[in-house]
């Protein structure tokens, strides 16, 4: 068992043990799960220190046969792409547990146990190198989230949970069909082996096959991202979910979609990915602008942040399908950034809900007077989300826009509108909630039930703010590992597409998804 496997096993073991804690020992439950999640975080830092940047392939690998027939492997490993997403998961789980400390009153044991199960699934998704194993972890993640929304959510929680589950499931099943098709070709579910078979030319796909398989994977991931117009499960799920659910959903689970695009769609089906890049990028840009405009008019803070996620994730998809080094780097960086800053927004909005039992913007006003520290941290998070220099989102958005400009400048121009609109909706919300008056009564502001942070809440927000600044300034901590992996993904996409097709005359063909000067 290597460190990565211990890290996968720890939350699963924690989940099982939590189920045996007596139901009345609520405090013990909370403390135990917090300790397990903190331990997992500390362990995950070992992945960072032990990670060798620039070393090709996966690290912390273990590859043993799980089921001999059909050929399914327990194959786990990480590279620069999955490393930071795993760290993001282990970093946010303790925060999710801390924000739920007083928020959850019913079935406390199950709630905190499910958070650990969720962490187990998330780490597994990002570590799996076998398609079957990946699919199993992908579905494992759905289960705790379904219950988190369905049991501890707000009024329309059942509707939201069922919609979330069915919608994601519909996409996953398409992906499962494609995975099985690949198995019939390759005779194995092991992803690394399948890639090798493709690259060496021992198996190949016809153009139609490749396009259909690409679309099957793509739709599954696009629902998870979510890419316009497959996004409508997201606002419902976010509004109804408890704070910890929204946090994990927005910060990590959406990244499963963009991770899948990068990990599987592009290396497996490079030609189809390039051919379809145009309309995908158009959808991404529509998502960026549309998400921002709809976010602007939301009367509910959580729904506003949810639609802003549609906009932000549009940037990530755009960066991925620019097929440029900077575009991919920015996309991965933005995945992490969005996890931190939007996660922080959900945490803060959740804290405000705990105080006023409302998420409606009109029920707030003048909060800055009553809770100045809350207002300060919220403002920093707002500015990070808008993408101000020195804060994390700036780096990601800048790299994406730069990379996309290399591919097609018009895309950058349209996407940049989203940056302006993000300032509109975030600052407008900030103004109405933290300054001004509550409702229509002049001069009336939130005076009651609006205490400032307590110690536990400080512990939740400080790490997030530290990361916003750190990722905004010291990008070298994170980017080298990401860049190296992105380069190899682009390399795979380039060589594989060259192999799969005869050389294309310079005037037409594969460049129409984006120009090929990738590196």
């Amino acid at each position, binding site marked *: 068992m290597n460190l990565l496997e211990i890290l996968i096993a720890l939350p699963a073991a924690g989940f099982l043990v939590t189920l045996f804690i007596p139901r009345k020992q609520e405090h013990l439950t909370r403390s135990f799960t917090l300790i397990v999640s903190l331990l997992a975080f500390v362990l995950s830092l070992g992945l960072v220190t032990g990670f060798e940047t620039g070393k090709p392939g996966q690290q912390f690998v273990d590859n043993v046969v799980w089921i001999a027939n059909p050929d399914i492997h327990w194959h786990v490993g990480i590279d620069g792409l999955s490393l930071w997403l795993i760290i993001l998961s282990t970093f946010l789980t303790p925060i999710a547990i801390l924000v739920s400390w007083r928020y959850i009153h019913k079935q406390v044991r199950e709630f905190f146990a499910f958070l650990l199960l969720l962490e187990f699934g998330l780490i597994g998704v990002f570590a799996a190198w076998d398609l079957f194993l990946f699919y199993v972890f992908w579905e494992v993640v759905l289960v705790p989230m379904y219950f988190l929304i369905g049991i501890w959510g707000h009024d329309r929680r059942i509707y939201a949970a069922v*919609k979330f589950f*069915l*919608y994601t499931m519909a996409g996953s099943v398409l992906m499962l069909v494609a995975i099985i098709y690949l198995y019939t070709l390759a005779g194995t579910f092991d992803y690394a082996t399948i890639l090798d078979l493709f690259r060496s030319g021992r198996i190949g796909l016809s153009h139609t096959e490749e396009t259909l398989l690409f679309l099957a994977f793509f739709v599954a991931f696009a629902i998870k991202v979510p890419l316009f*117009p497959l*996004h*409508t*499960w997201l606002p419902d799920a976010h509004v109804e979910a408890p704070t910890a659910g929204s946090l994990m959903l927005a910060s990590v689970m959406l990244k499963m979609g963009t991770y899948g695009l990068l990990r599987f769609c592009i290396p497996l089906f490079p030609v189809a990915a390039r051919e379809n890049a145009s309309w995908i990028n158009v959808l991404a840009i529509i998502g960026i602008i*549309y998400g921002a*405009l*709809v976010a*602007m*008019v*939301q009367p509910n803070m959580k729904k506003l942040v949810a639609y802003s996620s549609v906009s932000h994730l549009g940037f990530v998809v755009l960066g991925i399908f620019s097929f440029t080094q900077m575009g991919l780097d920015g996309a991965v960086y933005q995945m992490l950034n969005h996890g931190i800053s939007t996660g922080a927004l959900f945490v803060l909005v959740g804290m405000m809900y705990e105080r006023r039992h409302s998420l409606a913007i009109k029920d707030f006003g003048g909060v800055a007077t009553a809770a100045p520290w809350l207002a300060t941290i919220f403002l920093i998070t707002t500015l990070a989300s808008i993408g101000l220099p020195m804060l994390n989102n700036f780096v990601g958005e800048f790299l994406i826009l730069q990379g996309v400009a290399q591919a097609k400048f018009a895309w950058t121009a349209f996407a940049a509108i989203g940056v302006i609109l993000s300032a509109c909706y975030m600052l407008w919300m900030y103004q109405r909630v933290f300054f001004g008056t509550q409702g229509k009564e002049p001069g009336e502001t939130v005076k009651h039930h609006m205490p400032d942070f307590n110690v536990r809440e400080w512990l939740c927000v400080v790490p997030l703010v530290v990361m916003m600044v750190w990722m905004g300034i010291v990008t070298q901590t994170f980017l080298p590992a990401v860049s190296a992996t992105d380069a190899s993904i682009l390399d795979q996409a380039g060589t594989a597409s060259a192999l799969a097709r005869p050389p294309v005359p310079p005037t037409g063909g594969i460049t129409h998804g984006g120009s090929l000067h990738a590196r």
Partner: protein
Amino acid sequence: MTFWGDYRGHGHPHESSWTMLGPLVVLAVLSIVGGFVFNVPEILSGMFPIKEATENGGPGEMVLTGISVAFGLAGIALSWLMYVVNKDIPEKITSSLGGVYTLVYNKYFVDEAYDAAIVRPLVQGSESVLWKTVDAGLIDGTVNGMGTQSQGVGSLLRLLQSGNIRSYATWVVIGAVVVIVVMGVTR
């Protein structure tokens, strides 16, 4: 108007504490003598590579400085005249200019025009068209419609599952007859 004239505020004005006054004094002194003490153009020329503006020093520069200072002083004198010495003047100017005054007073209504042309259509369009019609109506309607459709098909098919063995047997017989007839016809 801020420093002279009748008091129009509500609070009790007081002199600022030294923590505010100190930096203000430093800034005030520097704003008067700073230009003479430090060679500002030389310091800034490193940041702005275009050097033309900094090179026409000499007597011309002093003349320019003098003119701008003179204009500034004239402005101060004029406002002293209008708002402190003879307070009727602004009133007269306002009434004689009429519409022009209103136009200028409202900054040529640029804010209002911007609000009407861009902000309000964007906000209202986003709310009524994008959110309520496209998002909640069209897209989400399609999603939920697929759910409703499957439920509808299911409730129709449910009628077949009556649990009545005899009706199942009838269906089997009818089905068999249909299959045989079809096979006979197509042969």
